[in-house]
C-alpha cells in the first residue's frame, strides 16, 4: 500500500476500487459488531440500514470507504459501518474528510452530519467543502433539533420552537439547507426522507455516482425530542383536497424529465409566473407546468424550488434539485501534482542547495 494512493487510484479507475480478484462485498462486510445505540424509532436506524445495503452495491471495498462524522446522534454512524472511519469533533467533519479525499482519490469518502453539526457550529466548513466541490458525499440528517444535548432548538428549527433553551419559543429564522447548499455553489443537492427507504436509496445512489460534492438533506424527526409524524404522500384526509400547503400532503417528489404536479389527483402543479418569473403553485393541468431538470446549470431554478416551502407548500420537495458536472477539487488537486512532476519527483538536494549557494573549502 503506497501512502500516496496514486498507483492504486490509477489502477482501479477501470474497475470498482479494491474488488479485483475478490468476491463482491456484502452487507455483512460493512457491518460492525458494535451495538447500535440510537433511540427506538429513530430514523437513523433506517439510514444506517440503507447505507449497509447501498455500499456493497456501489462496488467499493470496505477498506476503500472512509466515513467521517462530527458530533451528534447522527455522527455515531461510522462506528456501525465496517469501513475506515473518523468520529471527529463538532462541526469539523468536512475538514478531516477534505484532507482524506483530496490526497486519496482512490477512496470513497462520506460525511455524516446533522443539522446542528453542519448548519450551526460547522456552517463554515460545509459551505467551503461545497464551494470547492470536494468529492464528498455529505449526508445531513436533519431532525430540526439538538438530540444528543437533549432537545435544544437548532438552526433548522421553525420559528417558535419550544425547547429547553427556548421555553417561550425560538426567535431565530431557520436555515433552508437546500437553499444554503445551492447558494454555496454545490454541484449536487438533494433532499430525501428517512422513512422512505426506496427514495433514500435512490437518492444516495445518485449522490454516490456524482463526481464532486454532494449534499443530501435527509429529513427526519426525533422520536424523543421533536416528534414529526410520518406523512406518506397522499395520506391526508379531506383537507388535502383544497389546500396545496397542507402538511397532510407530504412533500412533492421531483423526478427528472417529469412535470412537477402534486395533490391527491395531481390537481396542482408548479408553474412559472409569467409576470415575475418566479415559481408558484398553479393548476396541474396548466401547460406551463415546469418539467423538472436538475441538470440546469443556472441554480436559480433549483433555488426557487427550495424556497417554495416557505411560501406555498407544506414542506420542501424531495428529490434531486441540482446535479451538474464540474471538475472536483480532488481532481484538480491531483492534476496539479501530476503536471508539476512530469519527470518524477524533484531532487531534494538540489532544492536544498538552491541557486544562490556558495562553497566554503575545507
Amino acid at each position, binding site marked *: 500500500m503506497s501512502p500516496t494512493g496514486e498507483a492504486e487510484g490509477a489502477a482501479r479507475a477501470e474497475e470498482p476500487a479494491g474488488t479485483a480478484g475478490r468476491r463482491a462485498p456484502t452487507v455483512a462486510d460493512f457491518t460492525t459488531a458494535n451495538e447500535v445505540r440510537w433511540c427506538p424509532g429513530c430514523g437513523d436506524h433506517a439510514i444506517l440500514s440503507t447505507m449497509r445495503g447501498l455500499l456493497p452495491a456501489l462496488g467499493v471495498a470496505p477498506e476503500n470507504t472512509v466515513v467521517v462524522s462530527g458530533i451528534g446522534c447522527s455522527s455515531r454512524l461510522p*462506528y456501525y459501518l465496517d469501513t475506515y472511519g473518523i468520529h471527529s469533533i463538532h462541526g469539523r467533519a468536512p475538514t478531516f474528510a477534505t*484532507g482524506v479525499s483530496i490526497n486519496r482519490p482512490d477512496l470513497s469518502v462520506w460525511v455524516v452530519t446533522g443539522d446542528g453539526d453542519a448548519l450551526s457550529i460547522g456552517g*463554515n466548513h460545509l459551505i467551503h467543502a461545497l464551494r470547492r466541490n470536494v468529492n464528498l458525499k455529505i449526508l445531513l440528517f436533519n431532525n430540526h433539533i439538538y438530540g444528543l444535548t437533549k432537545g435544544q432548538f437548532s438552526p433548522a428549527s421553525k420559528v417558535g420552537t419550544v425547547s429547553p433553551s427556548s421555553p417561550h419559543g425560538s426567535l431565530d429564522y431557520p436555515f433552508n439547507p437546500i437553499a444554503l447548499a445551492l447558494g454555496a455553489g454545490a454541484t449536487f443537492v438533494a433532499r430525501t426522507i428517512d422513512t422512505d427507504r426506496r427514495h433514500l436509496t435512490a437518492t444516495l445512489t445518485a449522490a454516490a455516482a456524482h463526481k464532486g460534492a454532494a449534499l443530501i438533506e435527509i429529513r427526519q424527526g426525533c422520536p424523543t425530542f421533536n416528534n414529526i409524524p410520518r406523512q406518506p404522500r397522499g395520506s391526508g384526509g379531506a383537507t388535502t383536497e383544497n389546500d396545496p400547503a397542507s402538511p397532510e400532503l407530504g412533500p412533492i417528489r421531483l423526478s427528472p424529465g417529469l412535470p412537477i404536479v402534486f395533490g391527491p389527483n395531481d390537481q396542482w402543479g408548479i408553474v412559472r409566473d409569467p409576470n415575475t418569473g418566479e415559481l408558484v403553485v398553479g393548476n396541474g393541468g396548466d401547460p406551463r407546468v415546469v418539467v423538472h431538470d436538475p441538470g440546469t446549470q443556472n441554480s436559480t431554478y433549483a433555488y426557487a424550488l427550495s424556497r417554495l416551502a416557505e411560501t406555498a407548500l407544506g414542506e420542501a420537495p424531495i428529490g434531486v434539485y441540482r446535479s451538474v458536472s464540474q471538475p472536483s477539487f480532488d481532481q484538480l488537486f491531483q492534476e496539479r501534482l501530476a503536471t508539476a512532476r512530469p519527470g518524477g519527483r524533484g531532487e531534494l538536494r538540489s532544492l536544498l542547495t538552491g541557486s544562490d549557494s556558495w562553497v566554503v573549502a575545507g
Partner: protein
Amino acid sequence: MPTDQLPERPDGVRRLENVVIRFAGDSGDGMQLTGDRFGAQAAAIGNDVATLPNYPAEIRAPSGTVAGVSSYQLHIADHDITTPGDQPDVLIAMNPAALRANITELRPGGVIILDTDSFTELGLDKAGYEVDPLTDGSLDSYQLFAINLTGLASAAVADHNLKRKDAARTKNMYALGLVSWMFSQPIEDTADYLRKRFASKPDVQAANIAALRAGWIYGETTEAFATVYEVKPAALPPGTYRHMKGNKGIAYGLVAAAHQAGMPLFLGAYPITPASEVLHELSLLTSYDVRSFQAEDEIAAIGAAIGGSFAGMLGVTVTSGPGMALKSEAIGLAVIMEMPLVIVNVQRGGPSTGLPTKTEQSDLLQALYGRHGEAPLPVIAARSPADGFASALEAARIALAYRTPVILLSDSYIANGSEPWRVPELDELPDIGIELATEPNAVDEVGNPVFLPYARDPATLARPLAIPGTPGLAHRIGGLEKQDLTGAVSYDADNHDLMIRTRQSKIDGVDVPPLEVDDPAGPPGSGADVLVIGWGSTWGPIGEACRQVRADGLKVAQAHLRHLAPLPANLASVLSEYHTVLVPEMNLGQLAGHLRRETLIDTVGYNQTRGMPFQVSELASVITRVIQGVVDDDTPEQAAVGGNGAAKVVGDVTARLTAAKAGVGAGGKTTVTHSDATREAGR
C-alpha cells in the same frame, strides 16, 4: 564599526571584523528587499550574516510617518555571529520618519546616509520634526552623508520610459548600489536577481539594474566617501552554504522529513502573520510532491492536516498564536487519535491580535498545556533561522515515531531573520518514518485475525497505524475515549484512567538528547557558578552575551533547550550544579515556571516583551550583575538585577507597584531598566 578597529590598508580599504547596517524607509520603499539582497551579497562573499527585519503591521501605514517606517538590520562579520547586532553602525534613512525612528539607536559616531529628497516641509512635518535635523546640528555627532538619492536614481533611469513615480521607486536599488560599493560587495548577484524578478517587465528590470549600477558608480566616482570598508569572509566549516530564513528553513525541513519518511507532505494552513511564508514556500514545491491546501480557517487547516495523516501523508499545519488558540480542540483530537502531526507555531506578540509583526515567546505555556483534558504532546523549539530546518526534521521524527502531534515553536524573529546555513548532504539526514500496519496484529476469542489499532509497541508505546486502502484493517477512531487495544468506544472508568496514564507515559518516554552545557571553565559543578538557560530564539543573544562576559574575564555557563516537553532527563541534575540559574525570556517567565514545576529548582528570570529580540549588551550586563551578586553576596535577590547600583531593580513589578503606592519615586529606576526580572526565591 568602530573606526579604530583595524588599520586602514594601503589601498584605502579599511578592514572591519563586523559591522551592523540598518536600511530604513517608508513601508513602500522596498527596504525589506534591499536588506535581504544586501544580506545575500554578504553571504555570497562568505561573511557570516544575521538579519532582523522589522516592519509595521499595516501593509501601507500612512506614508512618511514614523508608524509607517520599515527597517532591515544586518550584522555581517568575518567570524561566527548569532545576532543581528544591538546598535547599527550605519543607518540608511530614506525619509525623515526613518531617520527619526532609528537615530536614537545608531552608535555615536556612526554613519548616516540619508535621502534628502523628502526632507521638505511636508516630509518633516509628517515625521514630526519641528526643525530640520539637517540644519539644527542634531546630527553633528555622526558621519552624515546627505544625498538626493531619489533625484539621482530618477536621473539614472530617465531613459527607461518609466513614469515619474516609478522612476523614483528605484531609489532603494540606488542606495543598495552605493552601500554595496562602500562595503566592497559585488552587485552582480543582485543584478541577476533583478533580471529574474522583473523578467516580465523589461522597463522596470532595466531601470532597477541601472539604478543599482548608478549607485555603485556614484560611490566610486564622487569624492564624498573617504573610505571603503571590507568585511573578510568568516571561517565557516567547509561545505555548501546558503542564506536561510527561518520560515524557509522550517519549510525545507518539513520537505526533507517527508522525503526521509517516504511520505508525501500535506500542509493544511490558513494565512496568518508571521507564518504565512511557510505556506508560500511549500506551495511552490508541488514538484516535490508537497501538497499544500489553503483552508477556510485555522480549524479547517488542522482538520485537513489530520485527515491527511489519517490517509497516510505527513500531515502538517502552520500558524501563529491566535491560530493555535483556534486549533486547540483539534489538537486534542490528534492526541487521543494518536495521529502523527506537526504543528508549527511561529509566535508573535499576544494576547489576541497583539503585535502581529513583532516577536515574543509567550506561547510556551499554551503549547505545553493549552488543551482541555490531559492532553500531553511533545514540544520543541527552533533556536535560529538555520535551525528551523533541523528542528522541523526533529518534530517530524517524533511525530512519526510516536504517532503524536508535535508542536514546533518558532517566532517572528526566527521566521524573518536569516543566516548562513550549511546545506546537509542527504546521507547526513536522519532516518525517520513509520512502518504502516499491513496485517492483523492479534486474533479474537475464536481465533480470527483482527487488527487492534491501540495495541502498542512496548518500547515506544506507539500504536500501529493502518491507513485506508489496507484490506482487513478497517477501523474507526475518534474523539471518544478508546478501549485499550481495540480502540472501541469505552466509558469504563478504569480504562479511561489507564489510557490517560498510557498517553502521558508515551510522551514522557520520547527519546530526547541530554542537555549540553557550554562552559569553557569546566563541566557543571566545577566551572561557572551561574548558568544561563534559554529556549528558542534567545539562543543567539544569550550566546553572544556569554562570550562577551567571558571575554571580560568572568565565568558563565550556557545551556539551551530544544526539547521543552519532555525535558531532557539530565535537566534537574545539570541545573542543581549551579549556584544561580538565569532564565532570559521574551515573556514573563514561562520557562522559569516550567522548570520550577518540573525540577523544583528556582531560577532568576530576566524578562521583556518589547517585540524585539534581546540586545546582547543588555544581557551581558544582566549576566555580569548576576555573577557579581553571587560573588559579592550570597543573596542574589539583591544583586541579580540591580541597575545603577540599586539593590532591587530591573523592574520587579511588585516593587514598582509598592513604590508607586507609597509615592516613592521609583519611576526613574524602572524606566531606565525596561525589563522585569524576578528572583522567585533563594536556594
